[in-house]
């Protein structure tokens, strides 16, 4: 059975249409030790700050829309366990709409630009499509990327260089591996700043879906040097 605990949450409040600068407001919450950060935020909205702006939907780690920074680390609010002291901030480096909600238009624009549908040489001939079972499984693993932007938020190369971000590299690699895709995915990745990657694997560590954008980048790099016949991981 869970135990009752006292939690303190410091939340960054900012309304760009009204405020000159952000401020931090502290809330004391009576919670339980198995709560997630989202439970804390919802409790604050329910009982203390009816004007708090936050985003969530599925609360089960699937929609990927509840990303926030907790104590400086980008996480999914619905997945991250609560802590006695929490500083909760919106996901950087995205523009803030209000409080903890960010504007994802740029993200969608980048996804659109990368044309992430299989670029077929010949029209789909009807199924079933010939795909090796193991490859199908790999494609599905990459297909479980939530587009939550936690990796992009945690990536030092995104912060310091002209790099779209790990999530986009992963989706490009997903397409590159699809047997029906003929797109120039490596070239697209390089254009999107792939070579700026520091190889630090922070994206791998932070990914809530257990994926490795850094590994996708390594595979692209290998392809760059050794060509497309290089063995798949």
């Amino acid at each position: 059975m869970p135990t009752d605990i006292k939690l303190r949450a410091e939340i960054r409040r900012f309304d760009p249409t009204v405020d000159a600068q952000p401020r931090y407001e502290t809330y004391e919450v009576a919670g339980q030790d198995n709560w997630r950060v989202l439970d804390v935020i919802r409790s604050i909205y329910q009982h203390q700050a009816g004007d708090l702006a936050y985003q969530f939907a599925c609360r089960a780690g699937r929609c990927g829309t509840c990303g926030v920074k907790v104590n400086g680390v980008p996480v999914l609010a619905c997945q991250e366990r609560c802590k006695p002291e929490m500083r909760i901030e919106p996901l950087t480096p995205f523009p803030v709409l209000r409080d903890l909600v960010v504007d994802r238009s740029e993200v969608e624009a980048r996804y659109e630009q990368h044309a992430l549908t299989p670029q077929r040489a010949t029209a789909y001939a009807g199924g079933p499509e010939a795909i090796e079972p193991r490859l199908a499984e790999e494609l599905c693993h990459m297909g479980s990327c939530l587009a939550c932007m936690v990796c992009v938020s945690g990536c030092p190369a995104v912060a310091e260089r002209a790099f779209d971000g790990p999530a986009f590299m992963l989706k490009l690699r997903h397409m590159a591996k699809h047997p029906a895709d003929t797109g120039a995915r490596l070239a697209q990745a390089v254009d999107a700043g792939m070579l700026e990657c520091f190889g630090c694997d922070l994206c791998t560590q932070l990914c809530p879906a257990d994926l490795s954008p850094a590994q996708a980048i390594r595979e692209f790099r290998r392809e760059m040097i050794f060509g497309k016949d290089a063995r798949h991981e």
Partner: protein
Amino acid sequence: MSNAVLPRNTTRQAEAMLYGAAARRLHQVSGAVIIVFVLVHMIVQAVKHVPMFASAKAAAPWLQALQEQNWVHAILFFCIVFHTFHGLKLLAGELGYSLHYKTAFWAIAGVSALFGLREVLRYAGI
């Protein structure tokens, strides 16, 4: 009973050490240490051996002593080993090879620490 590896439990991400960030920071710092060392070493050797700088040598006896501190050596060796191995890990990554970030960090930091420790022991006569 199956021994298959379970997926990770990613509910304590904000409590964990960020290995990639730590490794990167250490790589930057160790790189800086190496550069500083090389510069200092050049200066010290010049002061020691070049007759033109004899007056500087007399005025700063601590320059010679600096290089012979065991902790300076320990830090230096740690940095050289860490910077080298981590750099090799990054190069391998660019060729498509990967090592798990946690294993790599502790293995490389561990080996580097051993080299650092070796210096301390050497100075202590062990």
